[in-house]
């Protein structure tokens, strides 16, 4: 999840010219070895105190975790999640006061399918990761990304705790028969090819990355549910979240910024995603890992070597990092701006209509004067015959109306050879799908083949459609307006 930040490392080596060695620790007066935040010089031990304190404070402030809670730590092998695991271990090991009070376990999701790795390569990676995870002494699990395609649509009552077939775990970290288990594990199922096709159908890297992170989040939540965890901690750093704020803005996902950066992401009702590393910059995390010998494993992702202009995410990350070097308060300013945002009308989280893909609140019921209806009008006017009809038809262009959404169905059906219709799977119409997707996911889906979408999206959207049809039938007899 987190990449090696080469900049952070080179900064660390450049330190002598930077003048940190000539400075004293601002806490104890010893010689400083790192500069945290903007200009706080610390010696090694004070940096550790600061770092650990901040981590604990992030948990403490949020008051989300109760004594004895089980928390699943999403471990990717990258810098941030490695640091997170190390901090949790430290917090539990400590015989001193203020011990962390939850029971952790690790989960690794193998994303080899995304970068087209062979079965053997993936097995090697899983082996390495399992070695690292074994060392922590926590229970650990491994899953593969394509398992996300098997996830059934989310039930309103999530009590489906059947064990996944290709799902492997090792509750006892001392057993040493992992290699065999890993061999037979995840890699190369029928879903692997489907996952590849789905990714290949995405025309832009931006859509691909969105899809992968969507699959990953779904799978994390799904696995947590199966294993009986209600909290999943991910390693996203403040730097990453800040560039996420801007990227979400650029992708039309403004409405989901608050949940996407919150400490406790509650868009899935029964599983909460926690972001305990959000108060750290990537640089601080890399420093911590370097100073305290925290191992991490670099793994290529879609964005690796893709160039700065490959996708909205990569561009935004570059943009934020460049600004941050020139204006050191960029990340924290953006972060604080994000913290001041909230989702409109989020009084009752259960009543909100949610996107069937990303589960954030639907942002498509906007007024007549809005970017959404203006775009629909543009598509309508430059694709349909006759400018004389625009007067009346645009009046009908209400946000949820389907008149103008057929443009996307044209896109979808136009590219294949009509295979959309002949597909044996429960195919989904772009029109009904767009009703259940948020603005940002509609943009993402526009770049993909609808028939390959994961069933959890399709089924859920079909379910919502059925529900709304049911509602329509009985609406005359309903006494109060409920969503």
């Amino acid at each position: 999840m987190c990449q090696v930040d080469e900049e952070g490392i080179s900064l660390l080596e450049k330190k002598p010219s930077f003048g940190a060695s000539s400075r004293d620790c601002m806490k104890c007066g010893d010689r400083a070895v790192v500069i945290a935040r903007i200009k706080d010089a610390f010696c090694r031990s004070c940096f550790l105190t600061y770092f650990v304190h901040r981590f604990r404070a992030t948990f403490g402030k949020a008051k989300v975790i109760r004594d004895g809670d089980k928390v699943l730590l999403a471990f990717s092998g990258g810098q941030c999640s490695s640091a997170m695991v190390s901090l949790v271990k430290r917090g539990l090991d400590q015989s001193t006061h203020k011990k962390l009070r939850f029971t952790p376990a690790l989960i690794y999701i193998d994303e080899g399918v995304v970068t087209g790795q062979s079965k053997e390569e993936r097995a090697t990676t899983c082996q390495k990761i399992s070695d690292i995870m074994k060392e922590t002494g926590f229970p650990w699990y491994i899953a593969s990304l394509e398992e996300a395609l098997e996830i059934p649509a989310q039930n309103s009552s999530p009590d489906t705790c059947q064990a996944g077939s290709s799902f492997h775990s090792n509750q006892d970290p001392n057993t040493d028969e992992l290699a065999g288990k890993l061999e037979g594990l995840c890699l190369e199922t029928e879903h692997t090819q489907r996952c590849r096709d789905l990714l290949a159908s995405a025309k832009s890297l931006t859509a691909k990355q969105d899809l992968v992170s969507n699959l990953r989040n779904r799978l994390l939540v799904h696995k947590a549910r199966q294993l009986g965890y209600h909290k999943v901690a991910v390693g996203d750093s403040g730097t990453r979240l800040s560039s996420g704020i801007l990227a979400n803005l650029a992708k039309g996902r403004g409405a989901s910024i608050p949940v996407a950066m919150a400490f406790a992401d509650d868009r899935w009702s029964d599983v909460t995603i926690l972001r305990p590393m959000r108060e750290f910059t990537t640089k601080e995390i890399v420093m911590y890992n370097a100073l305290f010998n925290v191992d991490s494993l670099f793994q290529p992702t879609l964005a690796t070597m893709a160039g700065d202009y490959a996708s909205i995410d990569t561009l935004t990350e570059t943009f934020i990092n460049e600004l941050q070097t020139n204006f050191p308060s960029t990340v924290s300013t953006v972060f604080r701006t994000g913290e001041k945002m909230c989702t409109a009308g989020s009084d009752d989280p259960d009543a909100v209509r949610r996107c069937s893909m990303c589960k954030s609140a639907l942002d498509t019921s906007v007024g007549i004067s809005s970017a959404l209806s203006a775009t629909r009008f543009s598509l309508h006017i430059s694709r349909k015959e006759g400018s004389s009809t625009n007067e009346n038809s645009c009046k009908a262009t209400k946000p949820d109306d389907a008149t103008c959404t057929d443009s996307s169905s044209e896109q979808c059906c136009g590219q294949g050879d009509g295979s959309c219709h002949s597909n044996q799977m429960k195919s989904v119409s772009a029109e009904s799908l767009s009703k259940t997707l948020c603005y940002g996911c509609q943009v993402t889906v526009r770049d993909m083949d609808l028939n390959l979408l994961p069933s959890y999206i399709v089924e859920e959207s079909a379910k919502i459609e059925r529900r709304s049809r049911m509602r329509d039938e009985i609406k005359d007899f309903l006494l109060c307006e409920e969503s």
Partner: protein
Amino acid sequence: MPVSCRLCGGSAILKRPKTGDALCKDCFFSAFEAEIHQTILDAELFKKGERVAVGASGGKDSTVLAYIMKLLNERHDYGLDIVLLSVDEGITGYRDDSLETVKRNQMQYDLPLKIVSYEELYGWTMDAIVKQIGLKSNCTFCGVFRRQALDRGALLVKADKIVTGHNADDIAETVIMNVLRGDVARLRRCTAITTGADGALPRCKPFKYTYEKEIVMYAYFKKLDYFSTECIYSPNAYRGHARTYLKDLEKIRPSSIIDIIHSGESLSIKKDVKMPTQGTCTRCGYISSRPLCKACVLLEGLNKGLPKLGIGKEHKERKKLALLQAQSFNQTIEPATSANVTTESSTPSSSSIAGANTVPQRIDF
């Protein structure tokens, strides 16, 4: 490789940046015009019989805006009385040339034109200000002064509304800027199509959903006469970052611009976040969130030979102001009853300032 127009089947001449569709010239014109008309209808921007001042700089956006406002007003019978309003910042080699364009537009479109200048309003031209402040931060002066100048000019021509040529790119850029600067108050209102409805004159942006590229296309194919030169004083560096980022985004995904505006529209700010309350400037009566509006602070700085007064840290600014006021109390005891008097006594041309001071007082009632 003849591409056919998606609408009429004729030979297409362009690909719409907004939707990616190939269109011929005429279909593009009608689509472009219909969209602006739709925006105006949807947002109920105008009422019949209103007098509307079009902020005209001579640049592409405002030239197309003036043209299309006149066109739509006649075509759809808005019943508007359209006036061109220009601000002369006093930048030799830039604004004087672009004002010539505006004057030509005035003749071509047969619309009345009013020009207000910084010199007559504030007693300072931008040239003179740049001499004082240098090439850094001069855009702050220009931006702050122009905002007020437009309002004052619109009041002079008795307009009910101001329309400006801000396009979708401008708005998306402003959203990004406000996030980067952490300006939550502006972030909340920068995507509104009409602003300032409660305080002074309402301003609206009919091009809110119109891509900059399409405006250029429209001007290009309509052969509209506009002035396209960058201001000779250095462009605002930080905004430049946001602009580059936006252009790069557009290259990756052309819908980004509208997507950002959608994001901006669907943002809401937590209720417990402190927001500046809008009041009026105690000196000139213009809307302001502080006792003194920014223009008055900047002006005072200029007039007192401390041009940096209004730039930089807030607390430093306040401290300096207090210091200045204390000094002025000590120095001139007789007229020092109100800050207003001190400004007048120290300006080079008190007659023009007196004229300027009478204008905003009309805002009060």
